[in-house]
């Protein structure tokens, strides 16, 4: 058996006192303590401090209420935590995502509907083609585009009617046109129509445009986005009757019977 010196024994003596050493180290320390008075005193000090430590930390009686209080507090906290973490409809991310998607779709549908209603003109304002029976004499169409102005007051209905006349028979789209010099009164328009409408043969509707063609003149009525504004385009065509014997005597609207 190996003999320990005091320095090495001092390092192991606390373990020896607490019973942590087994086997050969325990026997070696025990042999050294039997022979060394100083180390034996050191072992007694360790033993005494260990006893004091145990005395100092002897736990009190906490009582059944103390422990039941801990249990109730823990179980109550667990129950409340479960209640908090319980899945709810309004805590679901899918709920908010679905609601947001529904709102976006609804907004898109409403916007599309609004835009389509703004672009589509009222159907009752698109004039139907006027057919006035047999072609008569060519109307008195001004040789050049002529601006007519009605003297005096303009009625609310007539102030929004545009009438244009073009020497060429080409089709033009005047929707949205707002030039002041192109404005004529309804009286002027009526005058023009009185001269032109007897000569209608065919007409074509293009969207908000009513196109009337006759042997003498082409009449184009354009309904603008504003339902109160209508553009009338009168375009003379080459006369099929070179003698000019036909006149608009039987026009039902003008009533210029002769």
């Amino acid at each position: 058996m190996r003999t320990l010196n005091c320095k090495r024994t001092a390092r192991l003596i606390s373990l020896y006192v607490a019973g942590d050493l087994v086997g050969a180290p325990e026997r070696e320390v025990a042999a050294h303590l039997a022979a060394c008075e100083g180390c034996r005193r050191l072992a007694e000090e360790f033993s005494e401090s260990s006893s004091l430590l145990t005395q100092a930390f002897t736990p009190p009686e906490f009582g059944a209420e103390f422990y039941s209080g801990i249990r109730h507090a823990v179980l109550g906290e667990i129950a409340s935590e479960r209640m908090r973490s319980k899945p709810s409809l309004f805590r679901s991310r899918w709920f908010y995502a679905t609601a947001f998607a529904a709102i976006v779709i609804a907004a898109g549908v409403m916007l599309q509907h609004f835009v389509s209603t703004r672009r589509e003109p009222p159907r009752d304002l698109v004039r139907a083609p006027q057919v006035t029976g047999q072609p008569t004499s060519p109307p008195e169409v001004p040789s050049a585009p002529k601006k007519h102005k009605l003297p005096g007051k303009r009625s609310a209905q007539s102030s929004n009617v545009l009438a244009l006349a073009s020497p060429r028979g080409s089709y033009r789209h005047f929707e949205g046109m707002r030039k002041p010099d192109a404005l004529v009164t309804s009286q002027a328009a009526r005058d023009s129509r009185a001269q032109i409408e007897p000569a209608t043969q065919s007409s074509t509707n293009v969207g908000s445009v009513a196109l009337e063609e006759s042997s003498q003149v082409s009449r184009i009525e354009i309904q603008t986005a504003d339902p109160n504004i209508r553009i009338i385009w009168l375009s003379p065509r080459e006369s099929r009757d070179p003698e000019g014997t036909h006149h608009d005597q039987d026009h039902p609207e003008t009533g210029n019977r002769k």
Partner: protein
Amino acid sequence: MAAEMAHIFLTDAQEMLPPASAESADYFAVLVARARAGDEIAFERIMLATEQRVVSIAWRMLGNRDDARDAAQDVYLRVFKYLARFRAGEDFRAWLYRITINVCHDFARKKGVSGPAQLDQIDFVQEGAALETGRRGADPESLALHEQQLALIRSALQLLPPKERAALVLRDLEGLSTEEVAQALGSRPVTVRSQVSSARAKIKTYCAKLARKKGASQ
């Protein structure tokens, strides 16, 4: 009616559990499995089986009753929260003691208990020491002196480094083996022996100083 049903349910649940006296690894394994599945009764049984040891460790680590109660509550809340992380086959009690030690370290850090400035705030109950001195039949003066000596030893423990304190509490005061302490602290037995040996030497030195002061005063 509801109380009767709860009683019946509790009785049935208790009958299906292993006997509490066993407190073996299998006993805790069954309880832990049931508690993981949301069985609160099983969790309560775990608390019943371990609460005294948990409170004792907390009281010895923290030094007063209120902190020990709060720490024990925190320990069991952590156990419930991290029960899913507990690996099957591991020693549940070692896992529980590790959580207890960690909670006590957190408490001490928050309250700043460890340190010389807070030594006079330590509020240990004196029943054990008073009983011991009463047995000796000491006079009131020696009783008061002994009380003071024990209070100083408690203060000495609070001065130890946290790891040494935990090792000393579990090994010398709670009576766990070195291997169990190592398992609870997540270290090796050699390390625990070293920590415990160092802590004992410091306590012994502190007690020797006290004894010298005591001899000088007499």
